[in-house]
């Protein structure tokens, strides 16, 4: 009897806590087109798998009449659960409780679940929906942010960290997502910025809406802060589930291997790349023609589209793909595409994911804006990332591989394990036009008909050097293969290099270009 009374009390307390900010605040949240924090967790995690902690946490703030204010769970929900059977740690800020503002207890809860994730070596998912620092708690809320950023950093490369932006995430708060591996945003719901439109207007006189400044589209297409864009929260959760199913759950293990499945029949590899090197094509069709079930999970789909990155399985094994995209900007490397590829390569290396590179690029993008934006130091990141990576590195040169671009894109010289080239490959120090103009400058200028001579020399150079056989004769590529052989050869190379062991010189850490 007495026990029943205690249980009744517990039930009542739980019910109270689950109310969050109350019905009115909940209605407001729904009116904004947003799901409630608990509903989000339940939609993302496997059914009935969520276990909540620190449900009864209360703040200890006393200034500004805070002592009278009860904030359920202090505005954040933390716990554990599973996604497609994989255990994860999760926190979700509850905007209905004091605008999801971050005070000391709120941050302590987040820190607690982060420490769990790191100790248990399982992925961490953070759902961000917060007005920012709880001003009434002053420097304590800053301390809270700092503790979170520190743990984001320390956990980097150990466990996957995923940030889901489902509301405002402004000011210092943006740095937690920025330190994590993958950021998900949703149309009309996500807002991220360091300083908002108001401040920008008063300081600089620039008028801009919140959406144009830091909406989902901006971060998916322009800034590159977000990796995945969805048009609804449910679609966003499906993307997260898919990602979790593909990646290893910490840096000690490899991704779960699934049953091998062939690519779809209608993805024929032979017809994709046009013979004429000046004709574009979609490199994603090449990836789909080699991966299991033709299922390619693209990351950063809308940003720096001149390079394509993402995950796909090869005979059940998760691989990271890095591909130049001739369809966009001719597939050149530039500031953004270098950043995009380099970070992905480092992610794959940190989490034991083999890297497969498809090469077709004319080189780095020329231009004053690129040079002044630091294409040298940004471009260097790709070289650094490939060189440092010790996971299996397999490279296929589809067509153009010229100059610095050839070296950067997972070349033998940066220790690719296997490099193959299609017969359409052109591997040379620079394009035929440029090379002929330099090498034969004198002959061209002294010829009776310089233009005719120039064309002849370009043709000569093309026939002699714009092919894979010069590089093959020097062992820089391992073999020239038919497009149809690509998947089988990759599978063979993957099997051979799957457990490769390479050690780098002992050091605290390198100093990569930033």
């Amino acid at each position, binding site marked *: 009897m007495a026990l029943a009374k205690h249980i009744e009390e517990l039930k009542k307390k739980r019910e109270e806590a689950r109310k969050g900010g109350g019905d009115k605040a909940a209605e407001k949240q729904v009116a904004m087109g947003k799901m409630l924090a608990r509903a989000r967790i339940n939609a993302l995690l496997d059914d009935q798998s969520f276990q909540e902690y620190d449900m009864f946490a209360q703040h200890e703030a006393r200034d500004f009449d805070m002592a009278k204010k009860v904030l359920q769970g202090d505005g954040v929900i933390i716990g554990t659960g599973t996604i497609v059977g994989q255990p994860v740690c999760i926190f979700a800020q509850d905007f209905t409780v004091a605008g999801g503002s971050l005070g000391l207890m709120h941050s302590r809860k987040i820190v607690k679940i982060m420490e769990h994730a790191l100790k248990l070596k399982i992925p961490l998912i953070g759902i961000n929906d917060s007005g920012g620092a709880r001003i009434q708690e002053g420097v304590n809320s800053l301390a809270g942010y700092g503790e979170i950023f520190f743990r984001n950093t320390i956990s980097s490369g150990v466990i996957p960290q995923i940030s889901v932006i489902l509301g405002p995430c402004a000011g210092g708060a943006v740095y937690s997502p920025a330190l994590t591996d993958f950021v998900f945003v949703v149309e009309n719901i996500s807002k991220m910025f360091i*300083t908002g439109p108001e401040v920008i207007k*008063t*300081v600089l006189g620039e008028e801009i809406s919140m959406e144009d400044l830091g909406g989902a589209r901006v971060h998916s297409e322009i800034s590159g802060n977000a990796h995945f864009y969805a048009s609804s929260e449910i679609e966003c959760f499906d993307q997260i589930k898919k990602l979790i199913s593909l990646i290893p759950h910490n840096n000690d293990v490899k991704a779960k291997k699934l049953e091998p499945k062939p690519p779809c029949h209608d993805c024929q590899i032979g017809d994709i790349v046009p013979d004429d090197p*000046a004709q574009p094509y979609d490199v994603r069709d090449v990836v789909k023609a080699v991966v299991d079930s033709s299922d390619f999970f693209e990351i950063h789909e809308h940003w720096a589209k001149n390079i394509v990155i993402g995950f796909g399985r090869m005979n059940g094994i998760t691989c990271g793909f890095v591909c130049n995209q001739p369809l966009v900007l001719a597939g050149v490397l530039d500031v953004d595409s270098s950043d995009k590829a380099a970070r992905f390569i480092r992610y794959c290396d940190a989490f034991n994911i083999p890297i497969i590179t498809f090469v077709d690029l004319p080189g780095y993008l020329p231009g004053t804006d690129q040079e002044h934006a630091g294409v040298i130091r940004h471009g260097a990141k790709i070289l650094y990332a490939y060189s440092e990576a010790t996971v299996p590195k397999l490279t296929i040169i589809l067509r*153009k591989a010229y100059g610095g671009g050839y070296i950067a894109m997972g070349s033998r010289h940066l220790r690719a394990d296997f490099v193959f080239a299609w017969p359409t490959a052109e591997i040379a120090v620079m394009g035929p036009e440029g090379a002929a103009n330099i090498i034969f400058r004198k002959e061209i200028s002294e010829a009776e008909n310089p233009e005719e001579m120039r064309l002849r020399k370009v043709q000569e150079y093309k026939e002699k050097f714009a092919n894979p056989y010069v590089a093959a004769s020097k062992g820089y590529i391992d073999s020239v293969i038919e497009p149809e052989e690509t998947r089988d050869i990759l599978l063979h190379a993957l099997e051979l290099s799957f457990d490769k062991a390479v050690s780098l010189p002992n050091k605290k850490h390198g100093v990569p270009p930033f």
Partner: protein
Amino acid sequence: MKNIKEEKLPVEKSELVRFTVNGMTMSTTLTKKFRNRRMWTRPDEKQVSSFIPGTIREVFVKAGDQVQENDRLLILEAMKMMNVIVSPITGTISKVLVAPGEKIPKGKVMVEFE
């Protein structure tokens, strides 16, 4: 540069500027990059601009044409590639501002919609 009062203070050889952010005022110098920055303007969805300098090779549309999203508009050769420029929207073309053979800089408006 509204609300940034350029104010010469008695600091030798430096150009201090008064800045107010969140009610906090400070005097500071500005970088060249900051001074030369462009004001943000909303991109016009009814204009298709070149993303790279190059040569127009083919134009598939003319003023008055109705096009669907992703229809081919023209070919811009750049970086030795025949880049196909497709329509970002469904609509009617009001102006075609380039012709085959024309060399254009980056950011040039090529096609305008009604």
